[in-house]
């Protein structure tokens, strides 16, 4: 059993090394059929630059190619600028359709990522698919399957002894987090060439820190239970770095990952009839990781049917709704060559988590598509206008967050080994409330702006540029927060960092859960021994014990109803329930230390 697991680990590590190493294989050359440029004038300048630099047909390795592309575009820009200085733009052509201006960066990226790649990956995509995905799946399963042979029960031995899962000390964790946030702000400023929104974001961030430390008096109350006192998780840091690196490449540096995309071309062709995009690669990877790590959850929770059913559910929604159905729609589009391709969204995702739902291109796509498109539009709206309140009323936000959602699904499967790293301190809760509601407001404002532009055609409300707000939201929240910090920081801050601090949909679900829902966690009389397992393994950082030891029922907007607190409680104190009967009295503080009727009478004398 140990041997199988060792082989499994080696295979997984090997597959990761190959996955990284393969990025450098083979060469790229300029693809003359897909030159960037918004019109023939710009494309012509680029062609000319290619000729002058003698870059045509030049085979360069993947990293070198990025500088080549950069050189070409810079040269083309020079050529174009010289022409412009000499004789201005030709008649009938706008200045910025002629000059490159702010497009230089975009052109460089496009020239790189549309290049013709050749090499071992392109000639043997299946081989590389096997060496990466294949080995990882086999290795993962070799590691996981033996776990089914263990007797059912809580499987937490050694979590805090492992340098993969024990978390960071508070100071290094704070430094890594701060570096991540500041780095993203600076990169955003450079990439979007916009100073205003990074500044606004910084000001809001500083305000939040002020609110928490001064207004809520958190200064001086340094949290002890949020981070490791002795161990520092070096392997966890490494895992975090790999995840962060992956997301940076995926979102912001796609020109370097052409080999990954080429590798899954044949699968993409099978499923949707077209070449793969980086988003296809991401979807495939996501689905496979959830499947393998979902099997791990099934092995870990053999004794807990709630956990198993819930895991099947997220695996199903990811595979069918997020991955296969959109592929099938694309295939339909490809084979029938519709004038207006049918939109292929993830039908279980909803606004405001799906923040681009109301973007003009998606609205246009749906409106242009007759009844199917209108159905998708109505479905998307009904989900959050009616679906959320009704289901949350009956079952709590868990119906979405830990049964359906893809982000939640990844957190519950791939992220499960790190769930204990959520910060349980009061300070973290104070930050959580400001940040999640802040993001929620930002999502709503951004969407209002986008819709305003859609209906009026004007890009400015009250002097604010709706388009730059939209880009900033997509960059900072959509990619930076949800992707890089949300997932990349699993091994540093727990698996629900995004769900807890960022997700605007979770904020909305949570408000309803808090104020109008039958869902709550009941505590079983006086049985709590204050051991802390529930709080430790609550991925949302809820200090469950602080309620349970007072006999108080738990009604918290952030609880995603994962049921793990109930699963790990060694005294059977917690139960997720739907029923609102006496919730008002059962959430009162200190109600049942003395559980006999006589003593309650005494206490009432006192209150």
């Amino acid at each position, binding site marked *: 059993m140990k041997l199988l697991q060792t082989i499994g680990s080696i295979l997984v590590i090997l597959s990761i090394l190959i996955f990284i190493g393969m990025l450098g294989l083979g060469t790229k050359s300029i693809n003359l059929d897909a030159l960037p440029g918004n019109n023939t004038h710009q494309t012509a300048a680029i062609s000319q630059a290619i000729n002058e630099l003698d870059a045509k047909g030049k085979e360069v390795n993947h990293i070198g190619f990025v500088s080549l592309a950069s050189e070409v575009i810079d040269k083309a820009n020079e050529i174009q600028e010289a022409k412009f200085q000499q004789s201005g733009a030709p008649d009938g052509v706008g200045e910025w359709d002629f000059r490159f201006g702010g497009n230089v960066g975009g052109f460089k990226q496009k020239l790189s990522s549309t290049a013709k790649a050749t090499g071992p990956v392109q000639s043997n995509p299946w081989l590389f698919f096997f060496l990466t995905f294949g080995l990882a799946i086999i290795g993962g399963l070799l590691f996981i399957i033996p776990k089914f042979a263990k*007797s*059912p*029960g809580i499987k*937490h*031995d*050694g*979590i*805090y*002894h*492992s340098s993969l899962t024990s978390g960071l000390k508070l100071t290094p964790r704070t430094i890594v987090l701060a570096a991540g946030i500041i780095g993203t702000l600076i990169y955003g400023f450079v990439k979007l060439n916009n100073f205003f929104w990074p500044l606004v974001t910084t000001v809001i961030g500083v305000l939040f820190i002020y609110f928490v430390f001064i207004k809520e008096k958190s200064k*001086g*109350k*340094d*949290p*002890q*239970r949020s981070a490791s*006192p*002795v161990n520092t998780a070096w392997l966890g840091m490494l895992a975090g770095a790999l995840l962060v690196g992956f997301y940076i490449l995926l979102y912001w540096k796609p020109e370097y990952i052409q080999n990954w995309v080429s590798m899954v071309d044949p699968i993409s062709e099978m499923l949707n009839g077209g070449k793969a995009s980086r988003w296809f690669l991401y979807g495939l990877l996501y689905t496979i990781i959830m499947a393998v790590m979902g099997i791990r959850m099934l092995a870990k929770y053999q*004794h807990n*049917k*709630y956990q198993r*059913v819930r895991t099947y559910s997220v695996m199903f929604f990811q595979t069918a709704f997020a991955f296969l159905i959109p592929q099938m729609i694309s295939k339909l589009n490809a084979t029938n060559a519709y004038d207006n391709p049918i939109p292929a969204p993830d039908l279980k995702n909803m606004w405001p988590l799906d923040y681009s739902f109301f973007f003009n291109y998606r609205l246009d796509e749906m409106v242009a598509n007759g009844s199917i498109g209108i159905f998708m539009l109505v479905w998307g709206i009904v989900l959050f206008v009616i679906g959320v309140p009704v289901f949350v009323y009956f079952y709590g936000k868990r119906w979405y967050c830990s049964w359906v959602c893809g982000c939640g699904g990844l957190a519950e499967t791939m992220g499960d080994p790190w769930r*204990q790293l959520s910060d*349980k*301190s*009061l300070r973290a809760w104070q930050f959580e409330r400001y940040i999640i509601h802040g993001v929620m407001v930002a999502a709503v404002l951004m969407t209002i702006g986008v819709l305003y532009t859609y209906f009026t055609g004007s890009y400015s409300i009250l002097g604010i540029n709706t388009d730059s707000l939209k880009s900033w939201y997509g960059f900072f929240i959509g990619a930076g927060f949800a992707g890089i910090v949300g997932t990349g920081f699993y091994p540093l801050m727990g698996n629900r960092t995004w769900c807890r601090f960022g997700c605007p949909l979770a904020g909305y679900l949570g408000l309803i859960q808090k104020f109008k829902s039958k869902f709550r966690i*009941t505590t*079983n*009389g*006086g*049985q709590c*021994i*204050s*051991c*802390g*397992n529930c709080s*430790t393994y609550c991925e949302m950082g809820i200090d469950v*014990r*602080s309620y349970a030891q007072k006999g108080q029922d738990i009604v918290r907007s952030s609880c995603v109803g994962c*049921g793990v607190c109930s699963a790990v409680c*060694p*005294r*059977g104190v917690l*139960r*997720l*329930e739907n*029923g609102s*009967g*006496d919730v008002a009295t059962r959430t009162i503080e*200190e109600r049942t*230390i*003395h*559980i*006999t*009727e*006589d*003593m309650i009478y*005494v206490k009432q*004398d*006192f209150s």
Partner: protein
Amino acid sequence: MHVAIIGNGISGVTAARWVRKLSDHKVTIISSETDHFFSRTALMYVYMGHMRFEDIKPYEDWFWEKNRIDLVTDRVESIEYTDKSLKMKSGNDISYDKLILAVGSTPNKFGWPGQDLKGVGGLYHVQDLERMEEYSPNLKKAVVVGGGLIGIEMAEMFVSRGISVTMLVREPSYWSGVLPPEESKMISEHILHHDIDLRLGVNLGEIHDDGSGKACAVTVKETGERIECGFVGLTAGVSPNIGFLRDTGLDIGRGIKVNDHLETNQPDVYAIGDCAELTNPKPGRRGVEAIWYTGRMMGETCAYNICGKQVAYDPGLWFNSAKFVDIEYQVYGSAPAQMPDDMASLYWQHEDGEKSVRINYDKNSKEILGFNLFGVRYRHKVCEKWILEKTHVEDVLKNLGMANFDPEFYKEYEPDIIALYNKQEGTNITLKTRRGLDKVLAFLNR
């Protein structure tokens, strides 16, 4: 008024919190063990890597200052009852107006040869855990002496680190002094299944010195067998920690004697928790009940008494819980190891040997008396209400689903239990209420 509390365990801390809630008295908690309160019941999880020590502290460190509870890390050497002062090891003596003794227990040692060697110890204090940590690297084999709740925890701890364990248990079956025979047998088998070498009906003879003052083996008294080991765990129960209080004028029996109001024989001195012995325990209850829950209830009661409201200590209906490796245990009411003549019992056990439900009732009146549960969770309040209201066992069975506290989707075994009852008693009752909160609330708030 200054309320001084010796001991920062659950009973002392609960008393402090309630004194703070009920009054503005100055409160000081003194302990020589740790700076802050932690959950003693969770020590095992720190060793096993489930939690860090920080995680078993129920309150953040700033909690105490915010609630104006002063913490002193020091040892009380002796108490002057007449001038109301505490003699401290550091010399910084403390005077009090009211004193609460919440000094807990100490592990029993029965004078075994070798019991004070290095690599021998119980599991009670943080220092015991540190000792286990110290000896664990490269440890191949440990022997645990004693078959109670702490013994099995210690065995489980070693097993979690791949250290093989032999348990020497005096009783013929695991914890058979407390558990009825069927349950005791089931748990014994479960322990064996978890690679713990459980030896029943044997005592520790002696612990051998390796020549350097460290334990290297034990001999079993009955068989004379020698078992080589690098650590010997002594977990043969605990006794009130009264060593430093003997012969000081404090009335002491097994523990510190207290009346119904938790007062000792000395003025303004109270005793609570593991160290206290009730002079008049409630019928069916023991004078010393060294468990978490009673400590907590005593702490609260004591605070009321100190803050001017006389309240007699009433622990209510007996309940307790534990976990044996992977099997959770809950008990409500009466579930003795040996059935009295007038008690009847319905005992259902799942074929997997990891779940059982025992329902005890009066043979004649058929009133419900108690529940003993393994691997199945039942609701405290529902069971308690049935028992206090002397409900007829058949009424209980019909509504048994109300008691079920297992998570959603778990199989409900109530129909099987009722079928067993019907078979035993020749009745024909059926289950009317299944698991679910709404029915429970209607019942509890009736």
